[in-house]
């Protein structure tokens, strides 16, 4: 027959690469075939079982197994991002942490006289007028006129008030005049409890400089707190105007602070300390800051092998209003960490030996998606104002400072300056105190959003401190100790040091065991897959192959069967229409073949003895021979009872 070359090619392709659709004609046949031939268990039982009840039970069981698999696998997926904690202890040479030491008093009072004399005079006078005592007999109480004539800027800016009761009238501490109070009242102390004793309430008023009707009132239950807070505000005002170099000179030098130093059995001196200026604590000195490039380490635990320093705390040179306690503050931190001495410092007593035993713990958390922490802080939208590695504290302070610069126009004194900003002082920013207090209020109430933005760091080092105190120097060694230390200080021999000016500090490792707490992913992809496999196998003996089967049978094959049905229907309908028009009946029925004549019964058997040898039939066989058995059992079963015309198409060609 003359065929078009295109047709030829397609026929050839069809012949060499026969494409067969699903072998089942109907969906139910397909399901039956699937159940009989699938690798999963259970399905087969549904088909094979006899009796409706049994079949129903098997259907139920299979379905529940599928449900269980889905449930368990969902659980596995949900729990995939969980972490397990492991604690390892390693005994090794440990890096010694940086130890930052500050005097509690930031600046030498004698050196600060020039800057603070006005403020101190005013404060003393306020104490005198209100509490009726005078410090030192030499001071004669001046008349009110003279008092008014002096430059009392401080009280004009922030008046100290004494509240009679809550009737919104208050006595001005300076003039003694009564005045009406407007604005909201903030309590710095939560002293609402003793409101019955309202005569003790003292506070100060902060007003918006642009709009004087808008005032905030801060009250304290005790005059001590009120005066200190009031003094501190003015103090920060003054300090903000002094350049850093001057401030460093006003504060203590390393020679002033450190009398002796001993580390790991060897003598050390001020060269081992790095100066670091803290706005509220003046000059602080960091031992082992790592700035020289090397970090000291400890290879023996115990108090003899740690850091031992004797500090000189010149108590006589303390600022009486700013700090009311004596001693030093120390903080143990990592070389890369910023020492937040005002927040987490440990106080050191004078005339005592403070022994601080350390225990080192390193922790490491998994970052996203396991937990919400940050590795380097690079993904936090807050600029790190400190020149140190990221920590939550740094982030919060930076965030606040940024908000301060944005809303008040100047930076708060206690935190580093952002680029292009300068510290607040009353001359340039008359409004800053009111602004600062408002903002701080918001910050504490988490309205600034800092607490939401800042995340904790994923890894951190921690030195757990055990602090204990002994009397030092002991009664019998006091004499020679003070004499030798005075000689060390290079002072005149006749001026002996006082033991209340000295503090002995020992910082050492209690043991060299480093505890390392780390989080590990509890599941890896490998274990997740094996758990899937375990679940699939347990309930249905299923595998990925089964999944592919299911996809094949339930989606591809079913779809193509449905499509074919529709196609055939459409074809039939078309043919019917055609036939109706032409009236040509085209009836082709396959003759039913049975038994021996079944064409499917091809003798694929291996040759019998006779056929193999091609034995000639016995000659002249008049006797009727036994016909070959006509057993239907010999018929090879086709996969499906009904062969569809188009599946056989290929064979016919």
């Amino acid at each position, binding site marked *: 027959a003359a065929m078009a070359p295109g047709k030829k090619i397609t026929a050839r392709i069809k012949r060499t690469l026969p*494409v*067969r659709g699903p072998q089942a004609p109907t969906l139910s046949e397909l399901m039956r075939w699937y159940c009989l031939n699938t*690798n999963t268990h259970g399905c087969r039982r549904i088909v094979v079982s006899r009796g409706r009840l049994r079949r129903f039970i098997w259907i139920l069981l299979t379905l529940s197994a599928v449900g269980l698999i889905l449930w368990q696998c969902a659980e596995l997926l949900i729990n995939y991002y969980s972490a*397990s904690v492991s*604690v390892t*202890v390693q*005994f090794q*040479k440990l890096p010694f942490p940086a130890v930052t030491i500050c005097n509690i008093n930031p600046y030498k009072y004698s050196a600060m006289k020039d800057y603070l004399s006005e403020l101190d005079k005013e404060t003393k006078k306020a104490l005198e007028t209100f509490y009726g005592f005078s410090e030192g007999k030499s001071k004669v109480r001046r008349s009110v006129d003279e008092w008014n004539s002096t430059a009392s800027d401080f009280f004009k800016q922030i008046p100290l008030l004494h509240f009679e009761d809550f009737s919104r009238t208050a006595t001005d501490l300076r003039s003694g005049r009564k005045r009406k109070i407007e604005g909201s009242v903030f309590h710095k102390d939560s002293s609402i409890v003793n409101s019955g004793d309202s005569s003790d309430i003292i506070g100060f008023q902060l007003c918006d400089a642009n709009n004087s009707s808008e005032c905030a009132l801060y009250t304290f239950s005790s005059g001590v707190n009120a005066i200190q807070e009031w003094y501190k505000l003015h103090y920060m005002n003054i300090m903000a105007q002094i350049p850093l170099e001057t401030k460093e000179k006003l504060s203590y030098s390393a020679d002033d602070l450190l*009398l*002796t*130093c*001993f580390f790991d059995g060897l*003598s050390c001196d001020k060269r081992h300390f790095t100066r670091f200026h803290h706005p509220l604590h003046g000059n602080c000195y960091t031992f082992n800051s790592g700035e020289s490039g090397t970090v000291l380490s400890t290879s*023996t*635990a*115990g108090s*003899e092998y740690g850091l031992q320093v004797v500090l000189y705390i010149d108590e006589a040179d303390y600022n009486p209003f700013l700090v009311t306690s004596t001693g030093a503050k120390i903080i143990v931190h990592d070389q890369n960490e910023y020492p937040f001495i005002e927040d987490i410092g440990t106080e050191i007593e004078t005339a*005592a*030996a403070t022994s601080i*035993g350390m*225990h080192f713990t390193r922790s490491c958390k998994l970052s996203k998606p396991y937990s919400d922490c940050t590795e380097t802080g690079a993904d936090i939208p807050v600029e790190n104002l400190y020149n140190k590695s990221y920590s939550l504290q740094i982030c919060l302070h930076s965030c606040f400072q940024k908000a301060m610069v944005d809303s008040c126009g100047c930076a708060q004194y206690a935190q580093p300056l952002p680029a292009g900003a300068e510290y607040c002082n009353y001359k340039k920013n008359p409004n800053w105190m009111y602004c600062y207090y408002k903002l701080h209020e918001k910050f504490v109430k988490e309205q600034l959003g800092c607490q939401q933005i800042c995340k904790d760091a994923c890894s951190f080092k921690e030195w*757990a401190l*055990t*602090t*204990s105190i*002994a*009397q*030092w*120097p*002991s009664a*019998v*060694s006091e*004499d*020679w*100790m003070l004499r*030798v230390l005075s*000689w*060390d200080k290079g002072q005149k021999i006749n001026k002996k040091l006082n033991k209340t000016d000295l503090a002995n500090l020992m910082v050492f490792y209690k043991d060299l065991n480093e*505890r390392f707490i780390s989080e590990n992913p509890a599941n890896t992809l*490998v274990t997740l*897959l*094996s*758990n*899937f*496999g*375990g679940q*699939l196998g347990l309930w249905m003996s299923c*595998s*990925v*192959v*089964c999944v*592919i089967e299911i996809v094949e049978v339930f989606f591809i094959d079913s779809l193509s069967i449905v499509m074919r049905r529709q196609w055939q229907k459409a074809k039939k309908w078309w043919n019917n229409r055609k036939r109706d028009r032409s009236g040509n009946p085209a009836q082709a029925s396959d003759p039913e073949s049975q038994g021996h004549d079944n064409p499917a019964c091809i003798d694929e*058997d*291996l*040759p*019998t*003895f*006779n056929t193999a*040898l091609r034995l000639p039939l016995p000659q002249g066989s008049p006797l009727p*021979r036994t016909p070959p058995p006509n057993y239907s059992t010999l018929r090879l079963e086709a996969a499906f009872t009904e062969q569809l015309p188009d599946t056989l198409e290929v064979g016919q060609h």
Partner: protein
Amino acid sequence: MNLKKYFIRALHRLQKGPGYTYKELLVWYCDNTNTHGPKRIIKEGPKKKFIWFFLTLLFASLVFWQWGILINTYLSYNVTSSLSIGFKTMKFPAVTVCNANPFKYSEVKHLLKDLDRLIEAALERILQPTPGNSSENVYPPLNMELWHQIPLVLIDEHDKDNPNILDIFESNQPAVGNQTVEGNGTTEEKKYKLAVKLCSHQGSDNCTYRNFSSAAQAVSEWYVLQFTSILAKVPLQDRIRMGYQAEDMILACLYGAEPCNYKNFTQIYHPDHGNCYIFNWGMDEEALNSSNPGAEFGLKLILDISQQDYIPYLSSAAGARLMLHQQKSFPFLKDQGIYAMAGTETSIGVLVDELERMGYPYSDCTVNGSDVPVKNLYSQYNTSYSIQACLRSCFQNHMIETCGCGHYMFPLPEGVNYCNNEDNPGWAYCYSSLRSSIRDRQICIDSCKETCNDTQYKMTISMADWPSEASEDWIFHILSYERDMSTNVTLDRNGIIKLNIYFQEYNYRTISESAATTIVWLLSNLGGQFGFWMGGSVLCLIEFGEIIIDSLWITVIHVISWCKGLKQKRAQVRYPDAPPTVSELVEAHTNLGFQPEDAGTLPRDEALPPEPGTPPPNYDSLRVQPLDVLGPDSDAE
């Protein structure tokens, strides 16, 4: 017999040749295996066959890759930790209390007389070297021998490049110069430093100067060196006698509601602190349990440290030293001890922080220290192994090796003496070089292992003044009466300490390790992986192994028959004709044309037609497996 049968059978099989070809074997395997992929390769059409073949290969390689990862994970011996916190009845920790000062000065004065006079004179010279003062020497002659063994020297650093070393007792001149510099009141840097001169032998040139930035440090270090040298010669019994006695030190004791006294404490001699007393050490008696949190149920102690009787130059800090530790362990007070200040009440809340670790191969720790290559010198106290004990023993062993004598602060092995100036003149030099040697320390760190069960006592320490001013009077009276039977007050604020040690509300925090990967974990994950990708199990592996064995058999049989074939070929050389094929043989056998010799005599025509008989049955059962018939020739195909 069985074996013989087996071999015969094997031989027969060898002779018979393989039952199948490789292809048949593979097809059979794919059809019958329980793994899910291969069956598909057989059953599907050619296109799908290829896809399934590829998929099966892919899955198999995935399985092997993941198995590799799993086995690696297992072999890394990871651990997971579990944390538990709470309160339970626990053994109350052993409490060691010591005085910060090792001996009563009144008792050791006769030993230290020379030394003290020497240091006083030296200090006098350093601090007030005015000519008038130095001339009026009212002291009896000084024992200069002690001085010459380990001298203190002044280093004049006026000239930075060429420091001048001055002996304190030999010349006055430089010291006067010093005074003039300082007397001027100039704020220039201090130019004199105190140093300890250490020589390997007395009078030898091999000397080092231990520099100190502070004279106070130098004096204490020097004093400690001399003191240990003196004390090293005193026998242990005398040293115990010179220390603080339990009845003098422990004035009152209360454990829970039960009274206790100094007899409940075990005495131990500690080189740093003299006599120490341990409560609840658990050496002879059962350790006490505490089943209630709070100060009411803890240990309450009142101690007297009698500060007036301190050795002035030895310890500058005054107070009690105490430490909480495990039962039957040695208290290392320098490491873990804390101070309690005189005239205060110190309250210590205790949390037991335990870490239980798995031993080898999970982590490198030791259970009882028996596998540590350092001889534990603290075993003479009957105490358990600890890393501190190991490190100190290690140091002492090094010291004995290099210096020939033991250091006074650590226990001695048998047959070795403590170092002292007379017998070992260079010991201080040797000790100080050993102590600062980083290499030696590292050796000790490397050879010691930490214990697997690490118990720490986390303490929350708080202090208050005690006794209060109002109660001071009667408390001192009662305590004085009880101790000295005197109606006068013999105690004072500077000597008396109150201690409360108790469990906190949560008294334990236990971190225990368990293996993250066990063999069960490994097997279930291996099974999971195999099941996930291929639906296989161990039986499938066995099947696979079987197939491999079978194919090996086939190969063996092929090789043998090939060899046979070779032999036959050689044998064929003798016969020019090809050997008859089976069909020829069979034809020959069944050839109807073949007639016996004698039958040939019969005339052909007379031959009777064959009698009609039963035809041979056409049953398949008679069928002969052609392979068996063909035998060795089948390899020719």
